[in-house]
């Protein structure tokens, strides 16, 4: 069967199952409702005159606060026709020289006039910049007309503190002068136009798309996989005529069909709005990012569901995934909102950040001064991130197929793991690019960051299939060698990016020793967790090993400092001996005990017959 047809026929039963009967109709209804909600909310947020939506617009910098608007336009803004009438009456009374009634309208008129008078007085004295001198003359005339007095610009009574360099202040002064101290009374209307309403709809649709693909899809896919594992419904499926790859695709297609129905109208809204009032290119980049990032997170969610479904309830797995992805999403959006030259690389690592940034770009949110990195060129991290996520998603699919179909003892083959490692290196290097002065902030920090994805890749290289742990022979040496090889490859890459003279790691034997210990133990710990059953005691010991890893990483960083720095600091070989000799001894003992116990657990002889990894 041709590949495309095979994928289609594999996905079909699962898609049909997900959208069967009334479920499909309900989902379609919900999808239309959500799309309508995006539209209605967009219009309401852009054009609504209520206090809530006004506050939201002010919060999002789409509108100035009422106080600033009144100041800039020298106007009194009323919420209703009655209030406007009362304000007009108060203004009229004030200009007619009648006693002012001290109600709300009276106070507002008095305050506005007092502020305007103060502004005129401050502008009247002192020396204005050349291009504002005409305005200053008009301000003096207006002030004299209002106070019926003469202004001596050089008088010592004047306070020459007017900020002529503040555009807002100048605009406010001009409004007062133009209106000859007579404030305008306006009934409130949103300053945004129907075009802005369409833009807002596009933003909401993009936000919904981001939520659906980067949060809902992985959670749904992971929960469903956990449920299939928990209720053992995978067994009849594994016995069907679907190949492992097709089964993995089908199991992915089911939840994605649900998300697809909900996301399709939002996608259309987003693209339509971007085409009309935004930037279609940025919107397409957003779509590419959420698709690639979503594919990666869906695979991650499914692998987590498959691994945890047997021992944890699907609800717990789904809740855990939602919490982790929710936190990551929050971090991503926050990082995108405060994007700078230094942090622009995180767009490659966090699809949520890249998607938020692209969404802001598509609809011109944020400005050059602040927020969402509008002035930054983010093409490289966004493209690298999307390509990397897509590659990792493909590798995840292969691993998933091997696990659900039980077709291999290892989830990833050597070449695939190497590709994954290289992708991780590229992503981490893009996220934290070489630093001009502090090389260690680049390559050492990245090595620490990389150790996590590399450990996960190593776990997928370990033989864990349908063979009892006691019968598995884990090729510890070659797997640890692979891990160290990946790390070595990264250091080589780093040495090409920064001057190798600044990489003090290679000059200090102790730093190299700690680096070797860190990498070796990280690999052994990953293998131990992956291949051998974990008891309570072994979990506890794994925690101790992880703590020792963190300490040794810190020591590696310390010993990898420039020689003069080391001479100044005089560090101990075992850092805890600085606190107490006993603690130093404990650290020394653990330095030997940790790798020894891990090796011992992994090298336990197979009791019956050995089964090798590949």
């Amino acid at each position, binding site marked *: 069967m041709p590949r495309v047809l095979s994928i289609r026929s594999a996905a079909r039963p699962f898609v049909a199952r997900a959208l069967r009967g009334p479920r499909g109709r309900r989902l379609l209804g919900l999808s239309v409702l959500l799309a309508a909600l995006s539209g209605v909310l967009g219009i309401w947020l852009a054009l609504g005159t209520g206090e809530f939506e006004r506050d939201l617009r002010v919060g999002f910098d789409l509108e100035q606060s009422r106080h600033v608007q009144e100041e800039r336009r020298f106007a009194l803004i009323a919420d209703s026709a009655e209030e406007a009438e009362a304000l007009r009456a108060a203004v009229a009374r004030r200009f007619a020289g009648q006693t002012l009634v001290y109600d709300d309208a009276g106070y507002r008129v008095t305050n506005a006039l007092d502020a305007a008078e103060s502004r005129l007085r401050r502008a009247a004295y002192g020396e204005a910049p050349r291009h504002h001198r005409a305005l200053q003359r008009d301000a003096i005339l207006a002030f004299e007309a209002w106070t019926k007095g003469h202004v001596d610009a050089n008088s010592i009574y004047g306070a020459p503190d007017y900020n002529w360099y503040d555009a807002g202040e100048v605009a406010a002064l001009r409004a007062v002068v133009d209106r000859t101290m007579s404030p305008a009374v306006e009934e409130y209307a949103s300053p945004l136009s129907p075009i802005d309403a369409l833009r807002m709809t596009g933003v909401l649709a993009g936000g919904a798309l981001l939520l659906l693909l980067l949060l809902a899809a992985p959670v749904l896919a992971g929960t469903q996989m956990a449920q299939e594992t928990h209720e*053992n419904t995978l*067994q009849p499926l594994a*016995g069907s005529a679907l190949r492992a790859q097709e089964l993995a695709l089908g199991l992915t297609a089911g939840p994605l069909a649900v998300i697809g129905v909900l996301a399709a109208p939002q996608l259309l809204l987003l693209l339509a709005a971007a085409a009309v009032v935004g930037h279609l290119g940025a919107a397409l980049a957003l779509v590419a990012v959420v698709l690639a990032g979503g594919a990666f997170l869906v695979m991650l969610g499914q692998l987590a569901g498959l691994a945890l479904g047997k021992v944890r309830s699907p609800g717990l797995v789904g809740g855990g995934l939602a919490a982790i992805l929710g936190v990551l999403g929050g971090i991503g959006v926050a990082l995108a909102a405060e994007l700078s030259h230094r942090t622009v690389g995180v767009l490659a690592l966090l699809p949520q950040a890249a998607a938020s940034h692209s969404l802001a770009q598509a609809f011109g949110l944020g400005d050059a001064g602040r927020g969402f990195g509008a002035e930054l060129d983010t093409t490289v991290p966004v493209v690298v991130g999307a390509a990397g996520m897509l590659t990792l998603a493909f590798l995840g699919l292969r691993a998933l197929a091997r696990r659900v179909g039980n077709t291999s003892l290892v989830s990833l083959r050597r070449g695939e793991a190497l590709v994954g490692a290289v992708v991780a290196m590229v992503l981490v290097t893009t996220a934290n690019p070489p630093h001009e002065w502090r090389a260690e902030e680049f390559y050492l920090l990245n090595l620490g960051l990389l150790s996590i994805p590399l450990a996960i890749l190593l776990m997928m290289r370990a033989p864990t299939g349908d063979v*009892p742990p006691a019968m598995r022979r884990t090729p510890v040496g070659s797997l640890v060698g692979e891990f160290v090889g990946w790390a070595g490859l990264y250091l080589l890459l780093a040495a090409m990016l920064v001057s190798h003279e600044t990489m003090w790691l290679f000059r200090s034997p102790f730093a190299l020793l700690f680096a070797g210990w860190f990498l070796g133990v990280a690999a052994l710990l990953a293998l131990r967790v992956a291949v051998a059953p974990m008891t309570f005691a072994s979990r506890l010991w794994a925690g101790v090993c992880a703590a020792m890893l963190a300490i040794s990483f810190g020591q590696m960083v310390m010993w990898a400092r420039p020689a003069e720095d080391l001479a100044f600091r005089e560090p101990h070989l075992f850092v805890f001996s600085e606190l107490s000799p006993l603690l130093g001894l404990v650290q020394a003992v653990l330095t030997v005990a940790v790798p020894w116990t891990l090796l011992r657990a992994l090298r336990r002889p197979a009791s019956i017959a050995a089964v090798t990894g590949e």
Partner: protein
Amino acid sequence: MRIDLRNLGKTYDGDRWAIRGLDLTVPSGSICGLIGPNGAGKSTTLRMLATVMRPTEGEIRFDGRAPEIDDAELRRSIGFLGDGNPLYKHMSPSEYLRFFGECFRIPDKELGAAVEDMLVTFDLVDKRDAPAGSLSKGMRQRLLIARCLLHRPKLLILDEPADGLDPRGRSDLRAILQRTRERGTTVLISSHILRELDDLCDQMAILQQGKLVVAGDVADIIERYEVRRFVYELRLLPPTSEGGAASERAREVLVQHRALIEASGFEDGCETITAQVPGGEDRMADALAALVAAGVRVVTCSRVRSRLEDVYNRLSEDRVN
């Protein structure tokens, strides 16, 4: 489909074997019963046969061909009902069957008819649109069996299929399995209820503690093991004169001839006694003569053929002893 198992073994923890050294041949088109107590290794063997589990050692051949890794083509000709086989509780029987029909790549134009046929065959027409979670245990079991037969497999593997079925359901299942065999399908079935398999299976394999005890043609096995067992059923008319019940007198005589009374009852106006007479048919002839001489009105005396259950019990005793 002919099945050959050679030195098949599976261990889950590396220390204990669920099944080991299993050599078995199941001829094409036969019904083979796998019998054994809990933990004998029946379900493990059936899972390996369904290719959803890989053997730790040994090999399986289907029509002389060893399965490849991820052999979807082979699985297309196997229908497998595992133990504790779960359902998607929110799917209706027709949706469930359609879903698996698509997973088995039944062509669209045949799928509707196949689903309809299964719903009728397994008496699920009235419940076709009800959620599977609301079905009775028997109905769920019928639905699971229907799923296994939907794609007309060449090999049908059923692990405890009669679980949850009422007597009518069991009778229907036997009829369905007979029909399946007539189509040339090989059936492998495990059950605790040996009477279910007695007149259904033509092949049998008894497993105990992960080992094969005996395997082969059912009639041959029964013949082989019944030579040491002489059980007779006597039908007695009530006595014509006083002197107590016929069975009382008969029991006395039989006990004198060292017979072991296994059962007694009343059927069609006659008292019945089932007794095991050690020492062969001569001893029964002597006992019969003594019964007649004692005035017991024997209507019939027939040798009871051994059943699977007897063979199984005998083999179990042997192993325990």
